[in-house]
Each structure stands twice: as C-alpha cells, then as structure tokens.
C-alpha cells in the first residue's frame, strides 16, 4: 500500500521523480545488484561462454584455438556417435523416469497406509537418494560382479542360469542395469513428493467413492491419480531435466560402453572435452543438449504459468 502511494504521488507530482525517489530507485538497484551479478556469473556467463567456445576448435588445457564458425555443429549433425548418444539419452531418460514414477507412486501408496514401523520405513526409503552416487555405484558394481557378485551367485544357486551374467559389459544388459540403478537411486524423490500430496487429499473423496461402490483400483484411478496429477507433472518435468543431464552414475557404471551403447550426451561432452581435449566440439554438444532441454523448460514454464493463472481465477 505504501509503495503504491509513493508511486502514485511521484507520478502525479513529479514526472521525473524527486531526489528521494531517485535515491530509493538507486537503493533498489544496489540491492538487486548482487542477485543480478550472481545470475550473470552462474547462468549468463557460462551460457555465453559455451556458445562462444562452440564456434572454435579449442585445445582444452590451453583454451586456445581457431575460429571455425558452425563447423563443430555441422560435424555433430553428420556424426553417428552424436545421434546414437542422443538416442541413448532419450532411452535412458524415458525408461528410468518411467520406473521412478511407477515405483515411487507404489511405494508412496504403501507408506501412506497405517502400518507398523511406518516412520522407520519412510526414513529408510530415502536412503538411496541421500547416499553418494560413487558409493551407490560401487555397491551395485559389486552386486553385478561376475565372480563375486551376489546377484549372479543367487541366480546360479537357484538354477536360473548356468554361467554368470554379464550385467555391465554387454547389451542390452548394460542399458537395463543402468536404468534400474538410476530408478533405484532417484525414485525416493518421487516418493517424498507423492507422499506429501497423498496426505492432503481430502478423506471425504474416498468415502464418497466407497459409497458409490468403487473398489481400491477404481478409487486409485478415479480419486488418487487425478489428485496427484499436478504434482506428477512437476516431478516428471524436473526429473526429466535432471535425468537428461545425468553423468556420474552412467559414467561410473559403464563408462558409456560397451562401445557407445550407454554413452549419453553428457558422457560425450566429457570425452570430447577432456579425453580428446576438444573443448569446441564438447561445447557444441553441450549447447545442443541445452536446446533439447529448453523444450522441457518451456513445457515446465507453460504448465506452471497455466497453474498460476488457474489459481488466480
């Protein structure tokens, strides 16, 4: 209210603003300057740098090289490795995200029930999400190990296989393993978000459904799922963005192999930038990745904008 009064009087009485207004405007600029500077440092500068670097052929350790224009992009578009890596990225993102959502909702529904040790179970379920990726990968690599891994040991003991399975070194096992580990690592995020939303669904909705004769499955699809819709949209968008740029888990599990069967775009960026010391080409891959992720971002912004409009109405 005060701000409105000040603005109004300033507009009516002094079109160019009084000294006090100018000082307040200056103060405003000073106060937002740190935020703007930080934004420029962590968002604008890396973004512009990446685009700028992608126009050069650059030796990484010295960051020196020649201007090549759009050659890096032309090379990428003609590169089978790029398209295969993009396809791998999409396969990884879609599959692991689907598993995360399915398991996340299922576990959240279980943890929403009255059950013994519910608080303990709710705490333990978060463990994969909190554990360091390096530790998680080391544990899984031991589980998958052909000579000493418990998975192979149990499968051979149960008579399911005669010889140990090669989980990480052959296809499609490698991609399936990576997807499963990714789902295990990140599904607790879905559990937390869905569980929070489940606790706010009004109980009368379920009572009314029961009176109408709806069974558990019908209640899930007709009551629970529609109520979860908004939170699921946000989760899917956020997790899609995060999974799309996942690096450490895949790099540590398979290194992108066998061949380039599990090499996603972030791994390609790493290989180009530091293996081949070609920062220009790596930047071109990164910029292309950014453009793909921009699609996710626009979808996210549109959805959140629409929700805000609906809430305002």
């Amino acid at each position: 209210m005060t701000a409105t009064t000040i603005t109004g009087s300033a507009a009516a009485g002094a079109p160019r603003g009084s000294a006090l207004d100018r000082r307040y405007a200056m103060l405003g600029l000073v106060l937002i300057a740190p935020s703007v500077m930080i934004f420029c440092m962590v968002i604008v500068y890396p973004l512009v740098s990446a685009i700028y670097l992608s126009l050069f052929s650059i030796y990484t350790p010295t960051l020196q090289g020649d201007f090549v224009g759009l050659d890096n992009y032309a090379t990428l578009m003609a590169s089978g490795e790029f398209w295969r890596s993009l396809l791998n990225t999409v396969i990884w993102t879609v599959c692991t995200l689907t598993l995360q959502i399915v398991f996340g909702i299922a576990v959240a529904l279980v943890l929403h029930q009255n059950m013994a040790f519910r608080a303990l179970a709710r705490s333990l379920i978060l463990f994969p999400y909190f554990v360091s990726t390096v530790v998680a990968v080391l544990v899984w690599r031991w589980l998958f190990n052909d000579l000493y891994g418990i998975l192979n040991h149990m499968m051979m003991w149960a008579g399911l296989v005669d010889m140990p399975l090669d989980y990480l070194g052959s296809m499609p096992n490698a991609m399936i393993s990576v997807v499963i580990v990714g789902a295990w690592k990140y599904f607790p995020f879905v559990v937390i978000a869905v569980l929070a939303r489940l606790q706010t669904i009004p109980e009368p909705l379920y009572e009314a459904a029961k009176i109408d004769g709806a069974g558990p499955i019908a209640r899930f699809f007709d009551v629970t799922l529609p109520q979860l819709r908004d939170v699921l949209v946000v989760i899917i968008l956020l997790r899609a963005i995060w999974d799309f740029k996942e690096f450490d888990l895949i790099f540590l599990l398979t290194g992108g192999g066998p061949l380039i069967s599990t090499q996603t775009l972030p791994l390609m960026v790493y290989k180009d930038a530091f293996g081949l010391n070609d920062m220009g080409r790596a930047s071109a891959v990164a910029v292309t990745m950014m453009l793909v992720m921009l699609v996710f971002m626009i979808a996210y912004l549109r959805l959140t904008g629409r929700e805000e409009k609906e809430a305002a109405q």
Partner: protein
Amino acid sequence: MTNKISNTLSSGLGGVSRRTVLTGIGAAGFAAAMPGIRRAHAQETTLRWWSPQTAPAQREAYDYQIRTFEEANPGVKVLFESTSDEGYPAQMAAAFASGQAPNVVTHLPSFAVSNYWQNGLLEPFDDVIAMIGPEKYYEGANKIYEITPGQHAGTGIGNSAANMLWVRTDLMEKAGIDAVPRTWDQLRDAASKMQGGGIYGAPLPYARNSMTSLVFVCFVHGAGGMIFSPDLEVAVDSAEFRNALEFYKSMREFCPPGATAYSWGESLTAFVSGATATGLYTGRVLANVNAQNPGIAEFVSAHEYPTVSEDVPHWTFNDFPSVMIPKDAPNMELTKKLAAHLFEPDGYIRQLHAAPGHVLPVLKTISSMEAYQDNEIIRKYSDDVDRMAAAAAAGHNLGWESTAHQPNTKAGQIIASHVLAEAVQRYVMNGDAMDAVVSDTAMRLEELMKG
C-alpha cells in the same frame, strides 16, 4: 514501508546514515580480513604434488619424502593430491585451463608428458635431471622425454612392465603343462587346460577403457605389427593388426563373463583372488598376492607375454611413469628441488618398496644398493623382478612404439578416445566384419592425428 525502514535505521542507530552504516560494515569486513591477509603472507609456501599411484603403502612413502623435504626446507609445505589413471586427463586439462596446475606431477605415462610438452605447458626438466645426476640413470632412460632435441620434457620416476604374463605353477602342473607359454597357440592351449572348476584361463579386458586399448597395442606388436609406422603414419591396415584382433577374440572364451567391464583393478583382482589361472599385470601382483591370497604366493611367477610365434620378439608395455613440472607452477626453484628430492635414495627406495616390482628403479645407482635389495618380496621373487626389470628396460608404449619411432604426442588422446578398445569390442563382441573394423579404426586414427 521504505520510509519506515529508513526511520528505523536512523532511530535505531542514533541518526547514523545508511551510507555510513554500509561504509562501516565494509571497513569492518576489510579490517577483519586484514589479519588473515597478513597471516597468509607470513604463512609457509605450499607446493602441490599430484600422482595417480596412491595405494596406502605408497602414500606412506610419499609422506616420508614430503616430511624430509619440509624438514630440509623450513617454511615449505607440500600438499599431496591424488588423481587416477582414468581421470588424470580431465583433471590435468582443468588444472592447466584454470591456471591451477600443481607444482609436480608424477607417475603419468610418458605420452601424457609429450602431449603437454608439445603444447607448451611444461617447464624444461634438464635442471632437475642435472640435480639428480644424469650419470646415475640407466643408459637411454630419458630418451623418451627428449621430444625436442637437447631438452627434456620430464624424467622417469620408474619403469613398469605392465603386460607381464602371470602364471600359477600349481595349476600348470595340475594341467600337465611343463613350460610357460611362449606363443599365442601355447597360451590358448594352457588357458583351455587350466580353465574349469570355477577358474578361468585369463583376465583380459574387453571394456571400452584404456586398459583394453593398451593391451591391444601389446597384441598388435605381439603379432609383429604396429599401430603407427616410425614416421607416424597410421599402419593398422595390416595382416598383423587383423591377427591381433583374431587372437583377442579367441581368448574371450577363457575370460570371465564380466571381463567386458574389466579395467586394471578388476583384472588384477581376478588373478590375485585365484579366479583366473593367468594374469596380465605389473609386479604389483607380488605384493597383493602375499597380502591378500598368501595360499598361492608360492606358485606365482612372471614372464614376458607370448607373441604369435617365437620369431616375433616380446614387446613389453612400459608406460614410463614420469615426473613433470607444469610451466606455470609457482615457486619454480623450490618445485625443482622437490622434484629432485623424490630421487633421494632413502625416500625413493621406500617408494619403490611400497609396491615391489610394480615400479622399477630408473637409477642404476639405486638398483645396486643393498637397501633396495633388502626387501622381502624382492628377495623372494628376485628372478621375477629381474625378468620384469629387463623387460621394462626394453619396453615401449604407444607414445614411442620402437626405438625407430618418433615420439607420438597424440598417444594420450588416442587412448582416451577409445578407438582401439572400440575396435576390439566391435570385432569380438559385436561380431562386426574385420574389414569394416580395420577401415573405421584407420580412418579415426588418421582424424585424431590430424586434429
């Protein structure tokens, strides 16, 4: 509301203006930081030392070398930071690019040194070699570092024989094998006879990593071929290269299923744990077997890796573990003193004893010292250590494939690109046509050499 904030500030601070308050906060912050700044100036000089060789026993030896250097140079602190065999290209690139390169880097392969030297990132090492004493080195030990005639880009801190064939004499005896395999046919035959009962024939890597590339380079030379000609033209379109691929493929049935994801660590563990009858590794096997599986310690021995026939000489992969100094390293004089200090006999011998037979001395004066010979493992396996030392001394790597070859400054990028490992995977695991694999590999190598 804004007025209220202004008023509150004025009244609460006894009429002091906002500008005065902000100036005061700034001044107070600067004053608070000043003692720190003064302390920083008064603090000791810090030198940073990087290495990918960081086994606990090696770290103990490094700590001793650091302590003695710090005692000899009051006010100097040496900070050890670890890197890794697979991760050093990224860490070094980032360090160079950000101007945060360490003072001394040890144990990187010689071809990494040549690449950095070629791009003007290293300090000439001749002063350090002079401090160590050039006469103490084995003949020609530093030739690989003389990329620019008359100047050394670095020096060796040791030799390694990375592709020694490790055998279990107990399993050989049980299988009725009376001689260590000399040719590939004999190796395949031995692996076949010893495989069974939960033991595989060999732990060769089939992964997309540096070990697969380096082992394949060994096999190409074991077939009598080369990756590049002496004047560094791509030379993979050859019968020898094809023969090496065939041999690698033929060994797959004797390797554990998970060998498709093996690197150095997994391959070593497979042999040391007794899961494979043969191994391919450096002398680190000795210390690990004695510590982790002493039951087989009496039965392991090291030999040069077989070749296609007795007419083709052995080819040992020596990555020539190096010492180098980044050009922009601060405190250059102290840095060079530290680099030279690493070769002081008491510390150097501790470092070598930390992994007996794994890193072998480059100084003949050290090899002949009683203190160096006075090690349980070196004494116990003296024949094996001698064989490894002789093999390493005649060893080469992709950066210097033979004495006739020019130094290949692109070797590090070729290994990091996984071109050679992918050739193995395509032929062995995907079953791609030989001609297509060879042709694609040749093309990619040419691109890398041009790039």
